[in-house]
């Protein structure tokens, strides 16, 4: 369960403060939550609050009762985070080593860590690429590997910030189906409105505020109406 209790984010010096996210109160218990909104609307900030990557400047964020401010490491153990730029998320030179890096958190060592890493890669259909340079993987393979690396530690909640934005249709379909099949609670920031409609709950963020929240069809319709307005400076 994800709770935002008056959680807001303000950045910049005191005399030039910019509100990125207005104080927001939400309780997310649904298994599949989608966050949609225009570029710069604050949806990524909302996602980062859940993992503790960004701390609220007002209010609180709690995940399964853990406060992101006071229990940061525990929150990050509980919440996995996948970025849109998988290339930047992969730390080690080969897929096997990258998954193994995640498993170090679980205290797995040596041969056991290797075997577990290979099992995880096999589950994601990447076992044949275990020792290939990460640099040589396609965008879809990199995103799949990023997911494997995050899910290796079996987080209870998964947050994905535009995980399919850089993928072609085939990989987008594959990653979307994979996310849909996960046991974890998944919060996805996305521009893919078809995928958003399949969620259990959709939040629409605009101008740093949640302007629509609830039934996916109604929320997506509200978003389409919002986006039909002319672009400033366009």
């Amino acid at each position: 369960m994800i709770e935002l209790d008056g959680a807001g984010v303000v950045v910049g010096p005191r005399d030039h403060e910019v509100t990125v996210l207005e104080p927001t109160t939400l309780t997310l218990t649904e298994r599949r939550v989608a966050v949609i909104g225009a570029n710069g609307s604050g949806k990524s900030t909302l996602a980062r609050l859940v993992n503790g990557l960004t701390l609220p400047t007002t209010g609180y964020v709690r995940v399964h009762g853990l406060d992101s401010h006071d229990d940061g490491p525990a929150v990050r153990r509980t919440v996995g985070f996948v970025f849109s730029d998988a290339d930047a998320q992969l730390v080690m030179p080969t897929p096997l080593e990258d998954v193994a890096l995640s498993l170090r958190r679980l205290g797995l060592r040596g041969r056991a860590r290797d075997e577990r890493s290979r099992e995880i890669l096999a589950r994601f259909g990447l076992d044949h690429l275990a020792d290939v340079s990460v640099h040589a993987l396609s965008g879809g393979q990199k995103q799949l590997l990023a997911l494997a690396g995050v899910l290796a530690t079996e987080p209870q909640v998964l947050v994905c910030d535009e995980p399919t934005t850089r993928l072609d249709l085939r990989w987008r379909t594959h990653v979307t189906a994979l996310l849909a099949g996960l046991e974890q609670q998944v919060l996805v920031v996305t521009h893919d409105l078809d995928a958003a409609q399949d969620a259990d709950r959709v939040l629409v963020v605009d101008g740093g505020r949640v302007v629509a929240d609830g039934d996916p069809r109604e929320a997506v319709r509200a978003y389409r109406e919002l986006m039909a307005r002319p672009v400033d400076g366009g």
Partner: protein
Amino acid sequence: MRSSRRRRRVREPWAGPLGSYTPGPSPVHRIPPGPKLLGLAVVSVVLTIVQGPWVAVGTVVLSGVLLRVATVPARAAARALAPVAVAAALLGLYQWWARGWEVGVTTAASLVALVALATVLTASTRTDVLLDTLVRSTGPLRRVGIQPQTVALTIALMLRTIPSLVTMSGEVRDAARARGLGRDPRALLVPFALRAVARAHTTGDALAARGILEEDPSAQVGDAARR
């Protein structure tokens, strides 16, 4: 009608000489990473102290033999080391002109030999195994407040990042060419620097999001240190 132009194969971007592990059962693969690292360190010191063209050229020959024994594909090794060889040759020519042929040959050959030996090390040793060894060997740094795990992760990130930065530089160059600014250094350097910094930020976020080095560091990078 057949085209008279020859088709060219699109090659993968240059990924640098280091960090490309090649699995294999060779004798070099079977040597534990500790002795390999120590050997590289000893050769570096010897080349610095015992200066001379024949010692340096001999080390180049030795590194070539080791690359062969480690079953690093010759074409891949040549392609990875070629830019280093060109840079070493330019440096060597300058030294030849400034200080004589012996210094020129020594400088160029030493540089090529050390990078080639480092290539043997990374081609025959998995990075995470290397990390464990680095953590063990840099353990005493804890006394001066430096976390060995951080040092090891920094080296792993360096090995991982070099190919990405090479790709990024190609993208920036293409973008500058597309705007007709291919010869303007500002159109190359400024976006490259900005993108490199942005990438560093994203990688930092990713490390933080994965909780790497966050809790008990000894349980993470280089857990062999506790064995």
